[in-house]
């Protein structure tokens, strides 16, 4: 294992060396420009980017062509005598006016593209995105669908204990599902600090700000998987909240929406009437769980708490309190259930009753009280959580 890693490291060295020695061949694979666009917005940005890049390059070459010619031709070592001029009004006016005209030339297409991007009218679908430390929540406003999207790269890969997968850090448990060839409007906000939602191939990046609802739109050309990342520093795990969009053909998308409906209805019903359908979540809430079951399930649910409270419950004081030996996890059970279900105002601690099932909450509380260096001994049944909804 370690030898393989060592060899991989060696190979990277070689790659880097090769890059320095043979830049052109290697760069071809790495991508020197914005990624190929997958939406009309991204395509327009790419055209604009290429155009201004070209203008800048031409200016650069002309100006420094003159400078390097002068450095070559007007050297003292070539015996060049210094001329003592220091003004030329005509020239100075020319090189003030020409750049201004070039700027006007750049401003026109930029303005046109911006007007195009800002027009969010006539959209066919609205998706509300909410940023959390450190995950995204997606809500389909017309369809009553909502879910969280978390990083799915295993901890072991990040800590170099396992080889890294192809989509390392750019993979999630629930991708946002979108239709191709439809104008999609996004509404964007945040639950805690500022985040930014960005998929480069869509050509959209916008900040998710608490207290604000921002909007933007895109129109994806073709089905596929598209990846991006949070772009605004949002704390410790800013580098670990990727964005993945699964784009389906419009028909597939409609079918997906359809398939989501019954589940959603059932979920709403569990909230209202605890003992209806054969929906598994409801069944879980009703039956009696054993300590082992709760602990085992709790360990997997606790993965969601690790970002702040630490793998071993050590937390990140003083921002994120430890769970080992804390007042909450070793004190009265009531307070513990309350904080997990309802969160703590003005902190990152979210009301998890909105995100987790009764069984999840019961299990994770049981786990927190009997693992992570704690051994209170009590356990919580999912039915108790259901009763407090």
């Amino acid at each position, binding site marked *: 294992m370690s030898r393989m890693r060592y060899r991989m490291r060696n190979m*990277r060295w070689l*790659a*880097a060396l090769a*890059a320095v020695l043979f830049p052109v061949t290697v*760069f071809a694979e*790495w991508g*020197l420009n914005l990624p190929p666009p997958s939406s009309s917005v991204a395509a327009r940005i790419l055209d*604009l*980017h290429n155009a*201004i*890049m070209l203008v800048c390059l031409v200016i*650069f070459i002309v*100006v*420094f062509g*003159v*400078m390097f010619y*002068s450095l070559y031709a007007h*050297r*003292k070592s070539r015996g060049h005598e*210094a001329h*003592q*001029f*220091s*003004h030329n009004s005509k020239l100075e006016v020319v*090189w003030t006016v020409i*750049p201004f005209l070039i*700027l006007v030339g*750049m*401003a026109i297409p*930029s303005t046109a593209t*911006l007007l195009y*991007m800002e027009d969010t009218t006539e959209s066919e679908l609205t998706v509300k995105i909410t940023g959390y430390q450190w995950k995204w929540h997606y809500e389909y406003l017309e369809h009553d669908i909502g879910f969280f999207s978390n990083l799915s790269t295993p901890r072991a*890969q*990040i800590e170099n204990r396992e080889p*890294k997968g192809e989509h390392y*850090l750019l993979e999630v448990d629930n991708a946002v599902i979108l239709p191709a060839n439809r104008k999609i409007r996004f509404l964007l906000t945040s639950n805690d*600090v500022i985040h930014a939602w960005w998929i*480069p191939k869509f*050509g*959209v*990046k*916008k*900040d998710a*700000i*608490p*207290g*604000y609802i*921002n909007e933007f739109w895109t129109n994806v050309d073709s089905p596929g998987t598209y990846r991006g990342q949070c*772009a*605004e*520093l949002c*704390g*410790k*795990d800013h*580098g*670990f909240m990727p964005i993945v969009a699964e784009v389906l053909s419009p028909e597939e998308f409609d079918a997906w929406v359809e398939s989501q409906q019954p589940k959603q209805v059932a979920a709403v019903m569990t909230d209202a009437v605890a003992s209806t359908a054969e929906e598994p979540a409801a069944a879980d809430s009703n039956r009696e769980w054993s300590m082992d079951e709760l602990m085992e399930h709790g360990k997997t649910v606790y993965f969601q708490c690790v970002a702040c409270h630490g793998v071993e419950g050590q937390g990140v004081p*003083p*921002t994120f309190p430890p769970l080992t030996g804390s007042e909450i996890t070793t004190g009265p059970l009531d307070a513990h259930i309350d904080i997990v279900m309802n969160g703590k*105002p*003005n902190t990152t601690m979210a009301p998890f009753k909105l995100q987790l099932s009764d069984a999840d909450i019961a299990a994770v509380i049981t786990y927190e009280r009997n693992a992570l260096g704690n051994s209170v001994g009590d356990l919580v049944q999912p039915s108790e959580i259901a009763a407090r909804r």
Partner: protein
Amino acid sequence: MSAAHTDAHDHHHDHRPSGIMRWLTTTNHKDIGTMYLIFSLTMFFVGGIMALAIRAELFQPGLQVVNPELFNSLTTMHALIMIFGAIMPGFVGFANWLIPMMIGAPDMALPRMNNWSFWILPFAFAMLLGSLFTVGGGPASGWTLYAPLSVQGGAGVDMTILSIHMMGISSVLGAINIVVTIMNMRAPGMDLMKMPLFVWTWLITAFLLIAAMPVLAGAVTMLLTDRHFGTAFFDPAGGGDPVLFQHIFWFFGHPEVYILILPAFGIVSQIVPTFSRKPLFGYDSMVFATAGIAFLSFIVWAHHMFTVGMPLAGELFFMYATMLIAVPTGVKVFNWVATMWRGSITFETPMLFALAVVFLFTIGGLSGLMLAIVPADFQYHDTYFVVAHFHYVLFAGSIMSMMGAAYYWLPKWTGRMYSERLGKTHFWLTTIFFNVTFFPQHFLGLAGMPRRIPDYALEFTEFNVISSIGAFGLGLAQLLFVYIIIQAVRGKNKKATAQVWEGADGLEWTVESPPPYHTFATPPTVK
């Protein structure tokens, strides 16, 4: 030349305490300038070590060297230390040494305040660095301290806020001193439009400091009261507005950007004519361009925040205003090239650095123009493209101009030449490794790598490897810089003449090298 005679006379009046008390109590602009420069160089290495820790972590995907919390502290501290600890005090050091000597004044106008504004700094930075050792670590919200993220975090954030207050006081005091000195202490005949361009750029920079630093003080004070005293300036739950912080911060932050670069323009405008053996081309337009940039710097701040979701009219206004900055900046570059044109050019180390500043700063300037284009900025914003952009203007612009300035004026200050061979080696190592470090970051940004992340997707590996190798080379090359300075200061090298450089022009070159402790006690007459 009558000035030199008077100076020799003054030598007998150099009463000053020796040892540490000399430096603690000094009111001499040369001593204070030296302390500022040593402080700046020290902070340059402290911030540089943090940068190397960052680059070591980013050498490979995965977490190896630091954890994400410390990584965020390191990026935050690296920026604060380099901006407030290395670049700003560095330029103030040059201003202290040079402005009185360039305008024929015996010292700064307010010498005790000068002492005070320096001695605040070591305490401010001790507190900032001390925050790393508090529970919860140093500030981790980026040097921009955006709320609400900066409302999280422990005592380290409060220490940072207080140290920013102290740095702000120091800067404002220093700036007031510079304005008063330039306005009141010029030698007879030294009209404003005869002042060396370095003095002009510093005069304008000082006004920017006086206008901008209190705004930063306001922003961080509001942050402090939000954190501890129940206010909700930036908390939407209490009716506040997180974006308000960004507006206030960048209203300071954009003038700050020019505070960090205008003195560099001044330095280049001193060095290029000397080694072209020609007067500066377009002096008047240089002054007007500097003033124009300073004015524009106050109406472009929101181009740092195009993605917050401003109204269309706001985005258009800030885009157009920002693009306009290219005009006066272009004028400066054209003037420098025209200064070289048909000169008699030689390539001593200061000239090499000045040329690199013009060349590399222009790359940063052009990428800045690209960043001004709002739709394109939506792709570049908060990526490594931005990181590359501001290192091209801040490292290649500000830091390398100071290196050039050190080589240019060191013989005047120490009376000894530095080693030209080592100086050129230092130049080439710095320039090459700088580009190896930062040029690939343009590509990383375009490919989609966000900034401020401790770990990255595999497709970004190769350019990060190159960038990290370059960073270590760049860091090591600076040890040579220290060696060269020490060598020159210890006086083993060839003696420098008063003129030092064949083409040098200005009052500072009329006094002997090294200059006496007090220069121009009797003002020289400027024709």
